[in-house]
């Protein structure tokens, strides 16, 4: 090759290399613009999911649209990466050359988000499915519905209904927040749940008899029991033994961090008469500031660290989960890590938690000390780190004194006495063991489950109207005007029916309570 030819090639290659550097510069500019939210991010469809995207763009375009707006799409995480199942998974099936599962469980998400998954597993959120054995669920399954299907007692014009699903209220109400026990349909028409499959540590079923009973459609796809799926309840009991549903907060298929940071996201479940946290937040000055300043809160920021990326107002996520400058921007997926009182039960308890993240109920100080792994003081200190981004230490301490006093007042004046009266009635056999079959059980339930929680939650998040008018005012009214009269009436009926000693015991309990200084204002009228 002549020298001239070589010089020509060098010139061409030199220009090509310069062009490649210009292209690199262009890529960097585009990347910066995407980061700053000035342009739509570049979507990269991984080869493994190209076929899924093509097909579902026709059949379920919304799913693809949502996914294209996700960080997953930008990072090249496609359909297969999340939905991929392993041979032996109870709900796995062949789908156009891929072995996939419909439900993506926290175990699947943990393949990439392990730390987040572990935090979530420790949380009370993950235990939301425990409601299946609770008083609330008795209400939905038995009082509101029926645990066994029953026949309709009259015709529904236009519909041929031959059976009433008594679990409908539980499936549609309770479990859509608390999480269902996901069930596959059995060949015998029954349900096959995690209890039947008995999964091992890797989530693989060990009970092959149950696996053999799974009903499948013509394409070999396992059929779900429609009562338990669709479900994105936060404490969902999955077939692989994992608990929870990440999409409860991180809505699929865009998994938007922006949405998870906003109170409306939590408001799917944390609202209503029994735990109106969202309404309470909205009434508080925090909520007022949020509504006014949300556009300045940098909600699209990749990290969203309080004190760095924003400080205009807090949301639920800010106080309970998000990173801030005092903890190095560390996010937690256990919202209980910063909560010092649990206001869920009839009587509030301090949030000393054991190794499993459960509230320690032990009363003996020495034994209690042994069980506690994380104290309520440590949790409060974590919350104070958040508060002190905007409030002085003295202000925060003052707030907590007000809050503590409020909770203790509720506990001592109404909750513990109410609980003692109900226990006395039951111990004396003046009410049955069946819940909600007597008026006073509804009264007591309203008192602590609705009004008592409203009052305490109102106090915890600085919403005076909820603390007082929707809270303590109604607790007091329910206590003096309903609980006490109804308890005395039951005792009186018992006395008339020959249960004199039992009635005396209940009366004595009530009298001793009402003789206390805090109740003396009401005199002998009750």
């Amino acid at each position, binding site marked *: 090759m002549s020298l001239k030819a070589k010089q020509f090639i060098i010139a061409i*290659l030199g220009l090509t290399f310069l062009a490649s550097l210009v292209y690199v510069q262009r890529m960097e500019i585009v990347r910066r613009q995407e980061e700053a939210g000035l342009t739509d991010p570049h979507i990269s469809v991984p080869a493994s999911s190209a076929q899924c995207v093509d097909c579902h763009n026709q059949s379920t375009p919304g799913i693809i649209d949502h996914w294209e707006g996700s960080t997953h799409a930008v990072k090249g995480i496609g359909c297969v990466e999340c939905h991929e199942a392993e041979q032996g998974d109870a709900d796995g099936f062949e789908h156009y050359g891929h072995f996939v599962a419909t439900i993506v469980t926290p175990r699947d998400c943990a393949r990439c988000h392990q730390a987040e998954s572990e935090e979530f597993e420790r949380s009370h959120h993950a235990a939301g499915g425990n409601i299946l054995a609770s008083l609330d669920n008795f209400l939905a399954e038995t009082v509101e519905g029926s645990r066994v299907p029953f026949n309709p007692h009259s015709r529904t014009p236009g519909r041929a209904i031959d059976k009433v699903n008594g679990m409908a209220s539980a499936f549609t109400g309770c479990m859509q927040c608390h999480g269902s026990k996901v069930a596959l349909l059995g060949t015998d028409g029954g349900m096959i749940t995690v209890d039947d499959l008995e999964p091992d540590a890797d989530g693989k079923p060990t009970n092959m008899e149950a696996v053999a009973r799974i009903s499948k459609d013509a394409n070999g796809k396992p059929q779900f029991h429609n009562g338990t799926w669709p479900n994105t309840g936060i404490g969902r009991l999955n077939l692989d033994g994992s608990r929870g549903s990440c999409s409860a907060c991180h809505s699929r298929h865009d998994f938007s961090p922006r949405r998870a940071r906003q109170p409306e996201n939590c408001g799917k479940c944390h609202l209503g008469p029994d735990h109106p946290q969202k309404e309470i937040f909205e009434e508080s000055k925090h909520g007022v500031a949020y509504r006014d300043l949300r556009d300045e809160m940098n909600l699209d920021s990749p990290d969203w660290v309080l004190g760095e990326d924003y400080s205009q107002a807090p949301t639920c996520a800010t106080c309970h989960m998000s990173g801030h400058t005092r903890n190095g921007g560390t996010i937690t997926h256990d919202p209980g890590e910063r909560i010092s009182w649990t206001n869920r039960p009839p009587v509030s308890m301090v949030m000393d938690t054991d190794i499993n993240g459960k509230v320690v109920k032990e009363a003996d100080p020495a034994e209690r000390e042994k069980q506690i792994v994380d104290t309520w003081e440590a949790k409060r200190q974590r919350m104070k780190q958040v508060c002190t981004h905007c409030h002085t230490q003295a202000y925060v301490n003052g707030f907590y004194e007000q809050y503590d006093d409020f909770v203790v007042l509720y506990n001592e004046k109404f909750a513990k006495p109410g609980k003692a009266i109900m226990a006395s009635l039951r111990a004396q056999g003046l009410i049955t063991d069946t819940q909600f079959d007597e008026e006073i059980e509804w009264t007591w339930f309203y008192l602590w489950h609705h009004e008592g929680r409203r009052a305490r939650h109102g106090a915890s998040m600085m919403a005076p109207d909820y603390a007082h008018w929707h809270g303590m005012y109604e607790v007091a009214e329910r206590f003096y005007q309903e609980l006490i009269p109804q308890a005395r009436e039951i005792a009186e009926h018992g006395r008339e029916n020959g249960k004199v000693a039992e009635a005396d015991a209940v009366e004595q309990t009530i009298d001793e309570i009402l003789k206390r200084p805090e109740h003396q204002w009401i005199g002998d009228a009750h």
Partner: protein
Amino acid sequence: MGSIANWVTERVPISGDQLRELTNEPVPNHLKRWWFCLGGTPAYLFVVQIVTGIALAFYYEPSTSKAYESVRYITEDAAFGWYLRGLHKWGATLMIAAVILHQMRVYFTAAYRKPRELNWIVGMFLLVCVLSTGFTGYSLVYEQLSYWGATVGANIADSVPVVGPLIKTMMLAGESYNEHTVPRFFVLHAAVLPALIVLLLAIHITLIRLQGVTEFKSEDEEEGKPQHFNFFPDHLYTELIVGLVLMILLSVLATCLPVHVGPKADPLVTPEVIKPEWFFYTAFRWLKLFSGTAAVLSMGFVVFLMFCWPFVDAWIERKWPRKNLYAWIGIVAVLAILGLTVWEAAVAH
């Protein structure tokens, strides 16, 4: 201009003629063929690695707690970090490939024979240093695979009889991966091994200059024509073209196949599949085929044979002259390396 030239000549007493003689050594005609440029290619890529490595070191933090986050920062946040890391990663891949191809060219053209045996041994040391640099660099990312790759590598070293445990302890700065391991790998990767490579390269090139390049005469070369051509500008142009092609190739690879950050290392969770970088596939597959110590010893023997090859080849030539057995041995070795590499790449475990 004259006064400036005089000023420089007074202080650097080398005349223009001497400089021309030094830089313009006649180059044998066979070097006009492109595949004979494979010796310069790794040297060129080594310079790319040094430059990009220095740029990455501005941000990389060599500690167990910060290594992963700093690599993530380089890849996702720092300006042009993704490009520099891509150049560095693909540069390493191409450099190792070029070293292997260069060695194969030297082998099949028997350029290692007398009087160039020592330069072959220097080349073998260079190969070991380059592979070690690749291994330590891979481990610096502190991803799951790099962490477990380092752990498996150390365990393999542990199987060497007598000195194995000592080698493992020296590698990991302890009996197992600990907070001193990443800093140790960093010092090896960014200081010790590059310095050794520079030293060995200097010896390698000096020996080439002293002995001259091996001369080959191709069959189609016309009699009576010049046997050599000028280094400057002829050969320099050729090297410049190779360098530019490499930079364009690196740029394309770094932009079209960008480097990502995998899951962070978790000492408590062993990945289902542990794979080293591709250039260790042959050794990895070999180790899987045989039991620990036997595999390590046999592998060690093969490496020892490679070091001594010029002398072994001389003995074979004396025993079976003009049979070109070295070429057949080379073909079998290359097929074995290719086979083991493809095998390891094709299977999950």
